[in-house]
């Protein structure tokens, strides 16, 4: 039997505002527990929410970037449930009328482009954190995260494989970072994913879905989806039936377990939040947010190809993050003569070295100007590309400039024909047999002579000149 996989994703994105969604508390991650709280986000009696307009603007920006419809009048609702890290006993969220609807994102898997529909983006507040592990039977609650603004981005069930789901996620992850609406750090819980997964046979209605929760890395998301797809197919093929339920993925065991069934599902008793008037945004406000929209990754890739003549591959690599793209453009600005050389050296040499050191581009010990300094020396033949790689190693290691390293290590390329001729003469004199063979027609030996000369010059002789002079001198000219 052939099975088709149906996947829809719900992504919670923390909006990177300075203050919380409904109060003035800081949103900085990692502070001492319960130090970033106030009566509002602690749910104290009589306290009232006031909506953070920056969070609204960033949600609108995201909505525009996914080509969504911005609802000029949206509403907030209360989602009621009890949990100790939910201070008010309800979450303020947009249920009935979200801020954004009907958007999409285009993804590419292999050679296939595909459009994934985005049903809605709604604003809501985060809950705090409960900690149960290693506390000897008691639980601790940290409400620093309580009230941090979130966007929930809900896709259509348009994905047909884990690959497509991952491509969509990565695209969205990249987008929110480019828009500077979220840090989207998955380890810090700034970008969290729930997946709705079902299987069916093409041409028949969709199967019953299971909702997978607690997917906090791209790798786990893929594993959890694959696990769930196999579980459902095996279940059905064994004559069983998929039940609608919420499942928790355990990344340590590589399996999921049922958390609650449809019957056990909460009745959240949504109703309009009476403490907040409907959210009204004007056409002008939307227009000005649209006008100030930063470049999106897809536009940037295109521009890198057109403006700098980069290959699709290099353009993709260098547009992965805003920081990479900024570095590249700063590099080109310092080394205008050859943007392809910039792309090549950045993508193939610098990034590899940084990765080995576990260093992000924005903390690179080699600044764009410094790297351009190295590329300048290649361009003016001061050093060869091969030597340049050694110089770059030293730059990453010690943070010195290319010129200083070339100077102190004496790596400057030898381009003086007299010096080169002198080396060649010595090699010819030391290898009479090989000279005779070469002159007798064994052309292959030319490489041997080049190698000997470069070795004798400790790599510093200009390779083009070595070639030219060797040819002449071996010919006895």
């Amino acid at each position, binding site marked *: 039997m052939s099975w088709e996989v149906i996947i829809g994703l719900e992504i919670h994105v923390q909006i990177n505002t300075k203050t919380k969604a409904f109060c003035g508390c800081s949103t900085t991650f990692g502070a001492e527990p319960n130090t970033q709280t106030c009566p509002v986000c602690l749910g104290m009696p009589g*306290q009232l929410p006031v909506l953070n307009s920056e969070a609204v603007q960033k949600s609108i920006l995201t909505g525009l970037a996914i080509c969504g419809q911005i609802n000029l009048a949206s509403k907030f609702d209360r989602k009621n449930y009890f949990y100790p890290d939910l201070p008010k006993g309800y979450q303020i969220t947009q249920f009935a009328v979200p801020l954004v609807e009907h958007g999409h994102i285009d993804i590419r898997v292999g050679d296939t482009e595909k459009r994934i529909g985005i049903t809605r983006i709604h604003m809501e507040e985060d809950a705090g954190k409960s900690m149960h592990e290693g506390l000897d039977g008691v639980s601790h609650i940290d409400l620093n995260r309580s009230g941090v603004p979130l966007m929930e981005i809900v896709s259509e069930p348009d994905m047909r494989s884990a690959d497509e789901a991952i491509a969509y996620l990565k695209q969205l992850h990249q987008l929110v970072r480019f828009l500077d609406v979220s840090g989207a750090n998955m380890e810090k819980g700034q970008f969290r994913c729930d997946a709705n997964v079902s299987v069916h046979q093409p041409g028949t209605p969709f199967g019953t879905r299971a909702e997978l929760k607690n997917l906090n890395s791209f790798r786990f998301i893929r594993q959890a989806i694959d696990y769930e797809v196999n579980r459902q197919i095996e279940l059905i093929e064994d004559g069983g039936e998929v039940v609608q339920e919420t499942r928790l993925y355990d990344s340590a065991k590589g399996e999921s377990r049922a958390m609650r069934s449809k019957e056990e599902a909460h009745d959240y008793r949504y109703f309009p939040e009476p403490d907040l008037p409907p959210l009204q945004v004007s056409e002008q406000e939307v227009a000005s947010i649209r006008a100030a929209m930063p470049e999106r990754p897809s536009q940037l890739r295109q521009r890198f190809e057109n403006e700098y003549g980069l290959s699709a591959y290099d353009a993709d690599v260098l547009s992965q993050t805003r920081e990479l793209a900024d570095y590249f453009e700063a590099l080109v600005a310092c080394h205008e003569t050859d943007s392809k050389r910039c792309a090549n050296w950045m993508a193939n040499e610098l990034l590899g070295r940084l990765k080995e050191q576990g260093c992000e581009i924005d903390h690179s010990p080699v600044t764009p100007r410094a790297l351009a300094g190295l590329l300048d020396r290649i361009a003016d033949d001061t050093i060869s590309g091969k030597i340049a790689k050694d110089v770059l190693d030293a730059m990453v290691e010690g943070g010195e400039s290319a010129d200083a390293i070339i100077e102190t290590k004496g790596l400057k390329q030898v381009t003086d024909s007299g010096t080169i001729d002198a080396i060649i003469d010595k090699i010819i004199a030391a290898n009479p047999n090989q000279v005779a063979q070469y002159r007798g027609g064994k052309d292959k030996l030319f490489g041997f002579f080049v190698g000997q000369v470069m070795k004798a010059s400790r790599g510093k002789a200009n390779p083009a000149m070595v070639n030219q002079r060797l040819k002449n001198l071996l010919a006895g000219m």
Partner: protein
Amino acid sequence: MAYSTLHQLADKLDSGDTTAAALAQAFLDRANAHNGDLNAFVELDAESILAQAEASDAHRQAHGARPLEGLPIAIKDIFCTSHGRTQCCSNILRDFHAPYDAHVITRLREAGAILFGKTNMDEFAMGSSNETSAFGPCRNPWDRERIPGGSSGGSAAAVAAALAPAALGTDTGGSIRQPAALNGIVGLKPTYGRVSRRGIIAFASSLDQAGPMTRDVCDAALLASIMSGHDAADATSVANAPAVNWLTSCLRRDLTGIRIGRPKEYFVAGMDAEVRARVEEALSTCAELGAEIIDISLPHTEYAVAAYYVIAPSEASANLSRYDGVRFGHRCDNPDDLLDMYTRSRDEGFGIEVKRRILTGIFALSSGYYDAYYKKAQQVRTLIRQDFAEAFAKVDLIATPTSPVTAVKLGENRDDPITMYLSDIYTIAVNLAGLPGLSQPCGLANGLPVGLQWIAPAWREDQLLGAAAAYEAATAWHQQRPAAFDDANQGGVA
């Protein structure tokens, strides 16, 4: 002096006849003497009150008087105050100390007022009799076997018995106006959005509004002028609300050219005949003062109580979820697990009426019932708003009874919530429509006070106060006092 108005007391303070400290001590003496009978105050910290009063006298000396300089104002136990306990008359908030002042309290402090104790109320303002208080019922000064009304019963009784010259109340479905009527004082519920709700413990967020409870109309205007104003920290507090000339509105002495609507749905069989008679007499007085009395209809009135008892409990069911024993308030002893902690803490902490309303609200919002209850109630609310809008196209003000009956005996409706709910029949629609309403004394029925309710279009508190002031000037009902407390010859303040 005990039965002086705020204005009269302010004059005495300004002229140097008395000091804030002496005034505070005099009212403390009265309160201490009578609170055992009435149970109007649940918190009365003499030390804090006298300290405030001394600070006020010093401020007057150094900088002159502020608008409420040295005037004692009793505070309903629903307003959070950074000093003393705020318990909302509930065991779940027993001994709770709020680390902040309500916005209204801040404004009162800045105006020089003396926060004069916390008054009894129905638990979480849920009730019309003050009998649901965790601290026992407050009693009506006119007859201590009777209820003072609710939920702001303690505030009303304190003013009626002259244990304080004025008080703050809150009104979700009539909780200022009904006890004001039952105690023979003035109670004003401003337009929704006029007064910040921040720091007032929420019952039903879309209906709650704080207001003054005073001896006369002019005092209500004075307190309202201080309480009102935009608060950026309450998103439902309206910025740029139409301004009111609070005190000059009270100078009106005739009703020439005023069209007063008399809604036929508010004068029906079943209401106390004496109450009806007093209100009809009041309308005649208004006509003599030059008003035109016009019969109007508010056709959806009969659905107001039902809609209210869906909407208010629904909002309350969520508003009261924060009392979970986790961060503050009552937590049960030795919970077995989380669920046990929640259920036992809340079971022990909430009284029967609060539980009834939480359950009603949860039911109304439940999946499968939402459309039939909550949504339908909101539709009714829209129709009630439209009723008023259509009426106010024809009239400037609406006049009705505040309550269909005078104060009933303690315990009379205790086991009959529906009858108790129906006692709010004339006040509830005003909250559903967000309008300003005022109750003032208009005589006695069977020896008990009767309230005349005025309703105005949104933001037209000036109309409300003007008409009430003109009526008050032409009558003497606001000077009626409960005999047991009118002790000019028993010492005390006088």
